[in-house]
């Protein structure tokens, strides 16, 4: 199953840094996302694109994370050659990430 089935995301840009939020539809899924959607996994998912580090910030009160992707916008909006210089579409690619359906079902059962 895809990440987009359990969470939503919005991409933002500042210079050559993209940030992707990841927000659980059901707040109780926060811990599952915390365990499975690691910064390393995000870096690998966008390996061609990201030249720098990926940092994950936690916002548990709103069941959300902020992934900050350094060096991920081909030089940044002002000098990028990319079709989508802001990286607006990255949040939707992020939601294509596969998550382990069995692990998710097990997590949901553990909540009951």
């Amino acid at each position, binding site marked *: 199953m895809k990440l987009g089935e359990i969470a939503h*995301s*919005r991409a933002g840009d500042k*210079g050559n840094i993209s940030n992707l939020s990841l927000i659980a539809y059901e707040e109780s899924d926060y811990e599952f996302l915390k365990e499975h959607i690691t910064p390393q996994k995000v870096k690998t998912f966008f390996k061609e694109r990201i030249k720098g580090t990926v940092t994950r910030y936690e916002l548990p009160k709103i069941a959300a994370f902020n992934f900050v992707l350094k060096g991920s916008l081909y030089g940044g909006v002002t000098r990028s050659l990319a079709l989508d210089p802001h990286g607006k579409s990255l949040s939707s690619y992020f939601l294509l990430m596969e998550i382990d359906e069995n692990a998710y079902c097990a997590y949901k059962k553990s909540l009951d």
Partner: protein
Amino acid sequence: MKPRKSNIRIGSGAGFSGDLLEPAIELAEKGNLDYLVFECLAERTIALAQLQKLKHSNKGYDPFLEQRIKTFLPICLRKKIKIISNMGAANPIAAADKIIEIAKELGVKELKVVAVSGDDVLESVQNKDYILLESKTPFSKLLKKVVSANAYLGINPIIKALEQGADIIITGRVADPAIYMAPLFYEFDWNTEDPDILGKATAMGHLLECAAQVCGGYFYDANKKRIAETEQIGFPLADVSQDAEFKITKVQNSGGIITKATCKEQLIYEIHDPKRYITPDVIADFSNISFHEVSKDCIKINGATGIKKTGKLKVSIGYKDGFIGEGQISYGGYQARERAALALNVIKRKFIRLGYDENDTICELIGFNALSKDHPIGKPEEVRLRVAVRTNTLDEAHRIGYQLEALYTNGPAGGGGAYKSVKEIIAVQSILIDENMVNVHLTTKRLNS
């Protein structure tokens, strides 16, 4: 000084310079507003405006200023709404003059416009060799190419302008949230040194500053985030009480939605560490924010706070960085991607022969891998070859598109819809300066009967 009102309503009239007018008109007419704020200045817009000012000394303000003032001045005067905007761009004083001129034409009898300037620090930053935050190289290396240097100002000059009785405040570069926050500190006589209240107001400003983006714009999809009336999403307003209760809402029956989910997305939009959202006024801490639905389309913000400001101001440096030449051509139908790949190889080999640096070129197939090289899509039956190259000269940039256009007659079968363009690159980097390096000026322009 006594607080003037116990509740203030601040409307967000634009999320960028070219934003829609209709939702802002609806907001001004029906929002019961005290203030209408237009945030119109993107990262490099001020550099472009500066270039325009160099050509014409009475220009360099936002290209939509006239249209917005003509549209909103009559409504705002009738409704007693004050206007605050960064549409002054590189020339707030010329913008103030223009506003007075428009007001005269409209038959307005009395108006006070205050221009906030002093954000232009191009002269003073040349006295010391700052290190650019992005490239980590010295500022002096760029110097010949630099066109603008503008510091992000905070709330204080806007508060002063309000104390002087301004009906309209027009600024250049200020921190985006500041233009939404300042009226609260003026109206409620809040302490501008109190990080906690500054942090709360910053969160509000941050949620409002992209207008429709907190009301379902840049949010809705065809699955779990469906919304109704997408053809005109309403713009948001903040309803704030003197005892610091912050609610984000919109005009009743306007399009779009304001929910916890739309607020969450906008809260995290374009921030990095949520514990340290650095502005000229405060280091805001969003990490403990929670949202509560008060009623339909009305969300209360709880838990924002902040710590003392850094005392530094970010300065955006705009500089000329060559040109981009671009060309596109489409392939469709039988073996579309294979033919596009042939065309792509032709172009790539030409670029190698012409000696272009790989870092300054991009070759991609729209419909296959243009948005994300990491996630190419299977077997599209329609793709568009897109090539873009950074060049030193305009002539060279023009040649890129011609190479693509020549694929009509010289390339693989069935290439159609060729397109070419060139643009000058105005790039932006930043430095940090001490806040006391900036001398802010207020200039009043009046219309008296």
